[in-house]
């Protein structure tokens, strides 16, 4: 699943960092798992909003994944005001896993 964005260049930098954020149970990064829906960059306010989900609501690892996402984004954009917007509509499903993610899970 492609991550929606309004700034392709910054989005690429963000995704490099987010590839290091793993779902600890599955061992796959949150981008290939399809948890990241959108990254929105505001040039005026320097706000960066990551809209993402979890594989299940009230996932026991949820807080950790959100915290890691925030930390990773802050490392990629030290001047940015990072916000993680956690949503559950649309709910995550297996079709959101990327091709790389499928390869990781099936080998």
């Amino acid at each position, binding site marked *: 699943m492609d991550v929606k964005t309004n700034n392709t260049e910054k989005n690429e930098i963000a995704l490099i*960092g987010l590839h*290091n*954020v*793993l779902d*600890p*149970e*599955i*061992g796959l990064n949150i981008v290939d798992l399809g948890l990241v*829906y*959108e990254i929105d960059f505001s040039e005026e306010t320097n706000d960066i909003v990551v*809209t993402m989900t*979890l*594989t*299940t*609501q*009230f*996932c*026991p*690892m*949820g*807080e*950790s994944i*959100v*915290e*890691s*996402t*925030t*930390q*990773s984004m*802050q*490392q990629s954009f030290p001047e940015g005001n990072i*916000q*993680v*917007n*956690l*949503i*559950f*509509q*649309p709910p995550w499903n*297996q079709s959101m*896993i990327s091709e790389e993610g*499928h390869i990781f*899970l*099936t*080998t």
Partner: protein
Amino acid sequence: MFIAGANSPIKNTSYKVVLPFYGYAALSFLVATILLFNNTSAFTQHYFSPHTLAITHTMALGWGTMIILGASHQLFPVMIEGKLHSNFLAYLSFFFAAVGIPFLVTAFYKFDMSFIAQTGAVLINLAVLCYLANLWLSIANSKSKNIHAIFAFTAVLWLFTTTLLGLLLIWNFTTHIFSEGSLYFLSLHAHLGIIGWFLLMIMGVGSRLIPMFLISKYENKKMLWWIYSLINVGLISFIFIFLSSLKTQLYFVPIVLVGIGVVLFGIFIYRSYAQRIRKKVDGQVKMSLLSVVLVVVPIIILAIIILLFATLSNIQLVLLYGFTIFFGWITTIILGMTFKTLPFIIWNKVYSSIAGIGKTPNPKELFSSRIFMANGVTYLIGFIIFGLGIIQSSVLILNIGSIFLLITAVLYNFNVFKILFHKA
């Protein structure tokens, strides 16, 4: 179009609530295997003996129930998609159970059914009431009332029925509450707990977690409703036959109903496994899958017991039946699922603040996988040998089996406490 959620991260149940249950359960397993090792001769006698009762209640309450209570405080929010209502009620539940269980076990061991046993039983009932209230209030505040949560909540209602009857049976030793002696009600008390509490709870949690761990595409709510109905109707029909003192052969009705429920659950798990995206299945999930197979063993033994009861009373088979439930099916799922939940709880506690910006260990690295494997091997050897010892009524074979089970408990405790004391 996205629907925005809250900006603040979701709050899970605090690890402080859950960890005491895990530690307590691990120590209870060790205590149970030590008692088993010291009292193997009890397994050549009638099952209604002080030492057998002490071991059974250590396994059922200290081991099985405590770890389910702990894990479910963490997992119940996942099932109902809502927060746990109260951490305080969870602490209270732990406190009452942690004090009550040793009271009850000691009373059984000494066969002193007066003050110590009564205090223990009251405390255990208070623990269950706190747990029941917490789950009820959590469900009432949640948006999703799904089949898994209904399984779990019904299981807790059966647990309360079990512990309440247990309390009355304890009192019945000193004050005649019932017209019959407490021994008469033993099978009713046991099956309320085994089928109503353990089976329903494990099915409710397992049907949610196993497909989740396997990343399976399979879903079948209709089948889960069938399983739920079969198990509950089976248990209710058992209670009716028991209380009406109907013919022994009629017990085949609940056995068939529960048996079909178990087979359907096996099919559900198999299909989840077959339609999984995650091809590599770890040892912890394999162990849990084995427990689904092992649940069939006591059902077959029970059917044989009922067939034989028409002609003779087979004490060995009854002992084997109880053993395959508490040391077989329930222990297998706990041995597997502990290492699928506990390392993540600790990992969350220790590493969540630094994950994403630096290298952190995999949660699986928090325990020794070698010891986990050895644990599985010693357990299976111990389980089979001890089972044979019961059939043969041989103290020697029972001793050998109990040594392997004791080693299993030591290895399990090593890994559990290695995780519990893990630091960055």
